């Protein structure tokens, strides 16, 4: 093990971090808005993976397939919130009940996928990958595009959240819904929009994840939850910009540790990081507003 292995690992880490950031930002957006850890996020990712697979195998190039899968992710997430989560919240289910509900939904989605697709692995039909070698870093064309997509999507999101009226409304509603409502903001519509956007990210992340591995199964997105949660919590839940940094740290750390230690323990590294953060700074490395204790209505 030498410096060039580490540098190569950092290269992989950047790719992983890009995919991870898409996921962790989406995940944290949902938490920020609804104060619920939506475990079914992994389910939406999984669903998008297979939607893209179907479209891709039907003949469409992977990139438009990804776009369509993203739309699916957005619609599925928004529907999930509107037709499953919100009704339960209105029925009076409290925070811990909601976690179980999201776990239930995730379980259902995961096993519906299994029922439809079966246990065998699948992969996309990708355009041929041109391998670029920069010193010790080996990266192919697909991965470069993934990084670009991630950067662009995240930049657009930041601009949207900070500069546009809708974005500010989202941030307002996320911090203080009653106040937002009183200011005339249609919180329910803002909520739908937030879930749709975060679902877009789920879709892109799912497809990107599946593109970055040799083959994927119905458990791939579920296993991703480990690094996803680690990145989101590291960055401070509810805060998209924090989630990006969290993703960067977790992505690079896991790849470097895979180079130094056993690659099978990548997730363990993420978990150790998570545990360290929870012990030292539970609010995350970039804490934002006070954590609310009740579910937002």
């Amino acid at each position, binding site marked *: 093990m030498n410096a060039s292995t580490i540098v190569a690992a950092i290269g992989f880490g950047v790719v992983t971090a890009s995919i991870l950031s898409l996921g962790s930002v989406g995940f944290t957006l949902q938490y920020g808005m609804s104060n*619920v*850890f939506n*475990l079914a996020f992994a389910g939406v990712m999984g669903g998008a993976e297979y939607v893209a697979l179907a479209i891709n195998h039907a003949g469409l190039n992977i990139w438009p397939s990804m776009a369509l899968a993203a739309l699916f992710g957005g619609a599925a997430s928004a529907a999930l919130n509107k037709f*499953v989560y919100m009704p*339960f919240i209105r*029925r009076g*289910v409290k*925070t*811990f*009940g*909601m*976690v*179980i*509900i999201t*776990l*239930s*939904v*995730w*379980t*259902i989605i*995961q*096993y*519906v996928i*299994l*029922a439809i697709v*079966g*246990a065998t692995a699948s992969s996309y039909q990708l355009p041929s990958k041109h391998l670029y070698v920069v010193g010790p870093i080996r990266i192919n064309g697909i991965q470069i595009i993934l990084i670009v997509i991630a950067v662009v999507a995240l930049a657009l999101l930041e601009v949207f959240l900070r500069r546009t009226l809708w974005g500010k409304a989202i941030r307002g509603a996320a911090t203080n819904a009653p106040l937002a409502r009183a200011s005339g903001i249609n919180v329910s519509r803002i909520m739908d929009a937030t879930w749709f956007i975060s679902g877009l990210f789920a879709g892109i992340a799912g497809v990107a994840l599946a593109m970055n591995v040799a083959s994927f199964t119905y458990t791939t997105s*579920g*296993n991703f*939850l*480990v690094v996803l*949660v*680690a990145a989101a*919590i590291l960055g401070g*839940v509810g805060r998209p910009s924090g989630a990006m940094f969290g993703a960067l740290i977790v992505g690079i750390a896991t790849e470097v540790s895979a180079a130094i230690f*056993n690659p*099978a*323990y990548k*997730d*363990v590294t993420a*978990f150790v990081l*998570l*545990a360290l953060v*929870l*012990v030292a700074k*539970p609010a995350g490395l970039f804490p934002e507003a006070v*954590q609310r*204790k009740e579910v937002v209505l």
Partner: protein
Amino acid sequence: MSNPVVYYVSLLSVYGAVYAMACAGLSLEFGITGVINFGYIIFQAAGAYTAAVLTLGPSSPSDFQHYVGGAHWPFPLPLIAAAVVGAVLSAGVALLGIRRLRSDYLAIVLLVASLIATTVATNATTLVGGDAGLALVPHPLVSLFGNNAEGVGYNLAYAAGAAVLAAACFVVVHRITESPYGRRLRALRENEFAAAAQGISAFRLHLVVVTAGGAMAGLSGGVLVQYISAWAPSGWLYPETFVFFTALIVGGVANNWGAILGAILVPLGIGEGVRYLPQIGSATLMVALQWIVIGLLPLIIFWFRPQGIIPERRRRFVGARVDAPVSPDSLLEEAELVDPSRMEV
């Protein structure tokens, strides 16, 4: 000569008792105290592993399986050790996480922990036998039955023993719940801040409860592994915790009978009941359907009957009628007549 029916019945009984024991521990943690321990399965697995290793004896390099530790402890020491390991691990988790984290935060961290645990167990071949797990775990006290572990006598005795242990766990949980201590636990569940404002230390009570629950989880794992003689990571995956939660939610949260009912209906009922259904499509499909049903159950219950099949009992105290004039200030729509029932505390 073994009797297949007896064997099957005792297998079911042992499984049932093991599930019930695990549900007892989780009921204490989750139903009574409100701790969402999504990593519960880890403690059961750890207990099982402990019991297995402590009866298998030390592994030598020429063995087909490798693991850490190993001894030939006689019954009941491996079981006790299993409970202790479950308790200690649980306490460790509590010390790390419970103080600082909100309940749902903690829940997903523990879920992630159980995801990791599966990965570690599957890959750590020299540590825990890897993907294949451990096999040929000896049965306890077989010598009392003529060394015939397949015989009717041994199987029935094992099932009876498991049932006794499960009952003991429930007695413990019952005594805790129906005492002032249990009342404080429930107060914590209802509103941790109000409880703190009354001097109730959430951290200390959580620690105690999670340790006790962990002990029961570990014990249940030990009982199971010494019966089925094998331990594999695939039997203790993260969705298993979800099965236990579903069992409690369906059977009735915060109610001992509900926990037993849930243990029988969900892990036992759905798990074993599948064998009797006609097979539609492939085996994979059946597995998927099983899990889809388990996933749907909490949703259905939360929507239609959130308190579960057997809800938490309303606790009444003896002599609930006070000889005092009714004050005109009280709002008197006809309050429910309080029956001077036997003291139930």
